[in-house]
């Protein structure tokens, strides 16, 4: 029989119970108070679903002749098909479906990885269209997922390729507008953060909810005119073919606004398949990125500067000796049939006389290419014509070119003489055409732009006003003189007249010698350029057009400026006159 316990059995049980409950309280204190932060973090990580909402990249539109907007660059949602090998159960079925639906987009070499359960992500196909993706989704295969991504599509193919640039796999704009406007085009990602249930469906409870909608990128309407751009590209291609050239560029600008209506470079590429381009140089926009010695198209700028400072007048004459000695250099005219004649400044431009523009520079120094002359000319080139600085056109990687300082100790005199006819200085086509527009439009330098405006939330075009940078490029009277002199070159020439048909068109060709990389001296293939404008019946300039042909082959006695570049200008100017309905 049992001894009577000092403590009864009920008391033992009670003590036992309280002891266990006390352990629970201590344990709960540990979990809920001491380790609270740890579990709170674990809970948040698990329960809170933070999702980045990707903004849609801005798109590009261009105007047609009638003003309707046509997409030039659009976004398309494509899908990446992936599988989680730890979740799939029928590898054979997945293989067959992907091969059948995705076809060429299927990454068949990854199919073997479906057996590898050490990974949870195997890409089965990329760039699958919405329709294909739906077929895959409808098959409802365990462990197979779709990931939406966006890619750029180009309804107009390679149109204005170097102007647009492209978007790389990381979604970053490369070259052209895409890179320059990358931030605006990208927009701002949104955030959707909420407490969710186990199926990741957001709940209404919880103080952690955040909902910031994505700010989509800006949609731009380009100043590019689809009709003119397409024509320019076609004419440029034909023009280059005629002279056996492969490289050439054309830019067309509204002289009264700074808007670029066409900008074309050849050879070109298809931005949709930019990754197939082997030579990255093709991505470069020659017009803004490749400075060159443009040759005689600079002569109007020299005459304009000399007239503007009052050193010469439109009708000033000089005695053409055919060649002049500047320091130890002999500068001659290409055409020697006007040697010994007294000629005025229009004739200097018409016959493209190097000695004439050197004379004009001498007049700026009171008869000598002294520091004053050089200083004044440099001032016009850099401050008035704004060479050697960015025009800030919306193309990334703009070059600024190079002009020798007027007080350089050695050879400044010779270099400055050469600069009067476009040798010995480096400028870009965009710098030249904008300065040219300013020099003939009365002296107003407009900010060159590729953007007509943006599209607002309602889908309406909000135009961007032309931006004036300076109004005193040349005095209005001198600007008018220069314009009329350039017009005379074409209107008094029976050959050019047949293209211009009495319309107000002016222009100047240029053929630049290049430095032969083999010898380091002038003697390489010449670069032909043409710089001109179209005006209305009152003579008011409307469009400036500049053409550059890098590697044309023309008959002996002819120049690439007149035989390769000028025909392209002739064609384009005639097209623009008709297309825009210019009056005469």
């Amino acid at each position, binding site marked *: 029989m049992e001894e009577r316990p000092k403590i009864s059995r009920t008391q033992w049980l009670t003590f036992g119970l309280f002891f266990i409950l006390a352990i629970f309280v201590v344990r709960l204190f540990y979990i809920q108070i001491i380790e609270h932060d740890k*579990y709170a973090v674990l809970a948040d990580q698990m329960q809170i679903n933070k999702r980045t909402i990707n903004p849609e990249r801005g798109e590009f539109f261009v105007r047609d002749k009638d003003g309707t907007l046509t997409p030039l660059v659009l976004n398309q949602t494509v899908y990446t098909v992936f599988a989680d090998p730890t979740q799939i159960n029928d590898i054979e079925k997945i293989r067959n479906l992907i091969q059948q639906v995705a076809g060429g987009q299927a990454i068949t070499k990854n199919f073997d990885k479906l057996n590898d359960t050490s990974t949870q992500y195997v890409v089965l196909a990329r760039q699958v269209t919405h329709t294909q993706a739906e077929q895959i989704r409808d098959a409802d295969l365990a462990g197979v997922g779709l990931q939406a991504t966006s890619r750029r599509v180009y309804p107009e193919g390679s149109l204005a390729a170097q102007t647009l640039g492209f978007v790389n796999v990381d979604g970053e704009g490369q070259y052209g507008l895409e890179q320059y406007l990358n931030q605006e085009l990208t927009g701002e990602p949104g955030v959707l953060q909420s407490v969710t249930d186990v199926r990741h469906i957001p*709940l209404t409870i919880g103080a952690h909810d955040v909902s910031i909608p994505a700010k989509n990128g800006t949609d731009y309407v380009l100043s590019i005119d689809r009709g003119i751009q397409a024509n320019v590209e076609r004419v440029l291609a034909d023009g280059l073919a005629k002279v056996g050239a492969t490289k050439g560029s054309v830019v067309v600008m509204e002289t009264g606004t700074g808007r670029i209506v066409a900008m074309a470079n050849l050879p070109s590429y298809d931005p949709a398949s930019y990754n197939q381009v082997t030579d990255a140089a093709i991505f470069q926009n020659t017009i803004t990125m490749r400075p060159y010695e443009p040759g005689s198209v600079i002569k109007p700028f020299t005459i304009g500067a000399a007239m503007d400072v009052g050193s010469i007048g439109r009708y000033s004459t000089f005695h053409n000796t055919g060649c002049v000695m500047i320091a130890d250099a002999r500068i001659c005219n290409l055409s020697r049939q006007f040697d010994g004649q007294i000629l005025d400044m229009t004739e200097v431009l018409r016959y493209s006389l190097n000695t004439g523009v050197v004379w004009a520079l001498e007049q700026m120094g009171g008869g000598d290419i002294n520091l004053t002359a050089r200083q004044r000319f440099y001032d016009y080139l850099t401050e008035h014509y704004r060479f050697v600085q960015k025009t800030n056109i919306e193309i990334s990687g703009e070059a600024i070119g190079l002009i020798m300082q007027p007080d350089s100790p050695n050879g400044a005199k010779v270099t400055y003489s050469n600069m009067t006819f476009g040798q010995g200085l480096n400028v870009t086509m965009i710098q030249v055409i904008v300065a040219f527009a300013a020099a003939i439009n009365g002296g107003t330098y407009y900010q060159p732009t590729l953007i007509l405006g943006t599209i607002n939330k309602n889908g309406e075009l909000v135009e961007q006003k032309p931006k004036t940078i300076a109004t005193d490029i040349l005095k209005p009277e001198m600007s008018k003189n220069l314009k009329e002199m350039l017009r005379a070159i074409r209107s008094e020439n029976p050959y050019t007249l047949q293209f211009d048909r009495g319309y107000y068109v002016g222009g100047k060709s240029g053929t630049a010698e290049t430095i032969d990389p083999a010898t380091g001296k002038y003697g390489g293939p010449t670069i032909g350029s043409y710089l001109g404008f179209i005006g209305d019946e009152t003579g008011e300039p409307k469009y400036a057009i500049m053409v550059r042909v890098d590697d044309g082959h023309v008959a002996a006695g002819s120049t690439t400026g007149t035989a390769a570049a000028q025909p392209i200008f002739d064609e384009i100017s005639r097209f623009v006159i008709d297309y825009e309905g210019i009056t005469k």
Partner: protein
Amino acid sequence: MSEWISTNRHRDSSSSRLGATNTLKLGRKHRPDYLLVVLIVALALIGLVVLFSITPALTNGDDTATWHFMLRQGLFLVAGLIAFLIASRVPLNFWHQHGTKLFVLAFIACFALPIMGWLKIPPAYCTLGACRWYSLGSIGTFQPVEFLKFGTVICVAGFLAMRAAQHKLNSFKESLLPLALMVLAILLVIVVMQKDLGTGVALVAIVLTQLVIAGVKPKILTLAVLSLVVVGVLSILIAPHRLARIATFFGQGNEVADYHINQAMIALGSGGLTGRGLGQSIQAFGWLPEAIHDSIFAILGETLGFVGLCVIILIFAALLKQIITKVDFIENTYLRLIVAGVFGWLMAHVVMNIGAMTNLLPLTGITLPLVSFGGTSMLFIMASLGVVFAISRYTTHRKVELEKGDERANPMRGRWLGRPHYADRRDH
């Protein structure tokens, strides 16, 4: 088993101190212990409020479904209260006379279930290979093991009280062997056939508590516990799902097995000191399995925090203390053992549930009494508490002293000594 039942029916008049006519000799009736009711209702209401607060999570915010669910929960509580009321009104003699029949009925109900499940007879409702429920159509399901716990409490109390009166409590042949066979039979049906280890442990806890209170020798108790441990280990080794749970408990489980307990810990831990507040539970939205049943404690912790859980544990402590203390103030062995059984039952549930949720014990899938949502469990726990409530009418004023050499004091003797045994100051 049948041996002792027949013995019981034989009414061995020479040793019956419970009354030769199988009628309980009860003392003076006094006011019952209403504190029991207060504590029970407090727990049930806390459970109900938290359950209501997470109902939208369970019904995906569907208003009609939410309303229906809340109504159902409320009805279960009402049904539980009715069970409590009925049980507290049933004459204690009824249990004494029909306890064995109730047990046999419950045992058959449990035994038939897996067999019906294997034969695919409709009322048997099985999930994950375990047949533990009878499907009752739109009313819900009926879990006969809860009935069996009730039956076991009543029946074992009767058996041990009889043996104690016969001074054969520590007799191996007449007392312990039949009881061991009975427990083994129960475990066979519950643990092996129904694959429900948690309930098996609860049933063993009931019987053990009753053995302790009955006054079985410590040596025998130790032996009983040791043999149960052996049985327990064997039962774990033969069932893979239990091994997995044990592995989880020792940090060796895989992610799937760990999921439930990890989610419970996150619920508790993220609740912090004062909890997220009513209706702010996130774990209830599918993260934590069995949120309203076995895992309700973790949801309480997330909603009400450490402070709330301490209050709940305190109420449980008070309720259990209130129940076990009754034992010392009851002269009748049979009634003492009923109260002890109910105590063992509740304590096993509370300890196993909270222990599992706090990762101190392996997960066994057992409800938190009165708080968990579960019709059958609520019904029979309420009924058993109703019986305790009824017994609380017959407590003595002073602690009952057990005489040396006698497992039970003779209630008759005590009564005639004129002590105010049944008096209650509050009543008289």
